[in-house]
């Protein structure tokens, strides 16, 4: 962990990130359900793990995050704005011709390392980047966030085989395991369980955590970073789509959301009420 942050400070940081997502949930909307299922982990990475200055300066040994489930980009933009990699004002330009922020990650936006949107690409890009680090003799982390529905794509499983073959120990996959995809639950459509066993039988070392419990995320990521194995590693982050707003939590109607102002005011109040009052470190 690069810096000490109090639990209260971090909790409030995440609430601000989520409120940033709400800004993008109107006038055309965003994939709010998908964003809220992975925003805690993305927030944790930028707040506790990554060196923001290195990312801003595109330093060669910066850690790299690839959001392969590109439709959750409102979570990433929300966090990039909160850690000041992009200006917060830009979120007001979301989906307008004045800026580059739309439904999928745009490489013209600072902090976006590679565009995504089409499912099943990000892990192969991550392998290429991990091999680049090896050639450059750099010991950075390449972290790829995959959706669980995205695991339907055959190209992912090619990647899972290849990352093992090349012993890419700097490659970390986080599966945002919210158990839903566009129209149905993952287990009803194409069952993924036992997911960890699938990856471990492909040679990966695997972990799992509650994707919304900061202590659990922290503990598992630290173990992943310190694991001496030379194998690629994956973390199943068990999550809930739309986490934080009861009306949309695990509600199949809100993979995507485009809300009116009064509704958003109510959501903002709900989030504000989750701010912690007096917890110390």
């Amino acid at each position: 962990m690069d810096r000490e942050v109090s639990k209260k400070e971090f909790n409030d940081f995440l609430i601000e990130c989520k409120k940033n997502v709400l800004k993008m949930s109107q006038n055309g909307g965003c994939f709010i359900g998908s964003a809220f299922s992975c925003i805690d982990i993305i927030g944790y990475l930028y707040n506790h793990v990554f060196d923001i200055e290195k990312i801003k300066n595109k330093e060669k040994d910066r850690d790299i995050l690839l959001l392969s489930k590109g439709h959750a980009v409102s979570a990433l933009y929300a966090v990039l704005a909160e850690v000041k990699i992009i200006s917060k004002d830009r979120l007001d330009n979301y989906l307008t011709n004045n800026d580059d922020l739309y439904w999928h990650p745009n490489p013209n936006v600072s902090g976006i390392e590679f565009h995504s949107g089409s499912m099943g690409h990000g892990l192969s890009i991550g392998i290429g980047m991990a091999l680049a680090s090896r050639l450059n003799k750099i010991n950075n982390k390449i972290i790829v966030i995959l959706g669980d529905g995205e695991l339907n794509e055959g190209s992912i499983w090619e990647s899972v085989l290849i990352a093992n073959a090349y012993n890419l120990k700097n490659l970390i996959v986080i599966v945002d395991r919210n158990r839903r995809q566009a129209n149905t639950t993952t287990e009803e459509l194409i069952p993924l369980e036992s997911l960890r066993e699938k990856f471990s039988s492909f040679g990966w070392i695997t972990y799992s955590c509650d994707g919304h419990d900061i202590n659990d995320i922290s503990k598992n990521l630290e173990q992943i970073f310190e694991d001496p194995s030379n194998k690629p590693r994956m973390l199943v982050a068990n999550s809930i789509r739309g986490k934080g707003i009861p009306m949309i939590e695990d509600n199949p109607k809100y993979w995507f959301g485009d809300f009116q102002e009064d509704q958003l005011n109510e959501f903002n109040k709900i989030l504000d009420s989750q701010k912690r009052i007096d917890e110390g470190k």
Partner: protein
Amino acid sequence: MELYESKILSLVKENEKIVVLTAENRVSLRNVPEKLNQNFIDVGISEQNLIGIGAGLAKLGFLPIMHGMSTFLTMRAFEFIRTDLGYPKLPSVLVGTFNGLSATANGTANGPTHQAIEDIALMRLVPNMTVATPSDRLETLQILDNISKLEGPLYIRDSNFESMEIEREPFVWGKNDCIVKGEKIAILSFGTMLDICLKASKKLSEKSISHAVYNMRFLKPIDEEMLNEIFSKFAKIIVVEDHIDTGGLSSIIREFAWKNGKDKKIIFMNLRNNFFRPGNFSDAIQNTELTIGKIIAKVTDS
């Protein structure tokens, strides 16, 4: 050691940012892996990952040269090529082997599953892509000599032919080449078919029938200056290509003529919209209209 292998090794020696990748297609790379160590990456039979991995390397400043059989490289991985190389305009090289009728050096016995007869159409579709169609290994090597200057992805429809013994103008990037100079009729071809056209040309010359043969080794962007020259100089143009009628050189010439209001007698000899029978090269070609005899007939038929 083959010419191609020596070239690859010398390129990596000069530029350590070059990484040689293959989707387990090592026919032209047999002696390369043990000499390149980490600069050689074989991803196994997975063309989509070949491109994605190449794109990840390219994004971080490496220059990937990705090898595969043209059919699988351009079709299986098409969306990866379009989205991960074309859209971000990443300097990168795709080398597709076993094209059109020349599925292998000694035949096309693999059949329709392996025939790359629409690869040019697909690669031309991708914005930012350059398409090169060398006629022999010598030209492939000349193209590879220029890759450090690339500003986007390049598709090379590699030829399996060793160097043809013909006189050529000095190689200029992006420019096509007049191999046989003459008047009245221009034959435009590239790749493996150039050899067939030159054999037809020899017979035509023996009969004192004036004609020219052009080697169209760069198809995108197309050398418009040369096309203008060809359209003004010749009364008849014959296009010969081992590619379907749509999207290849036949399409390029039609598009050029229409765009520039050129009214010209043009004959298109290609693979139409067919799959063709497998067989040894000399047999397989008999099942198409791309034979020496048929080319001669089109030239002399006025």
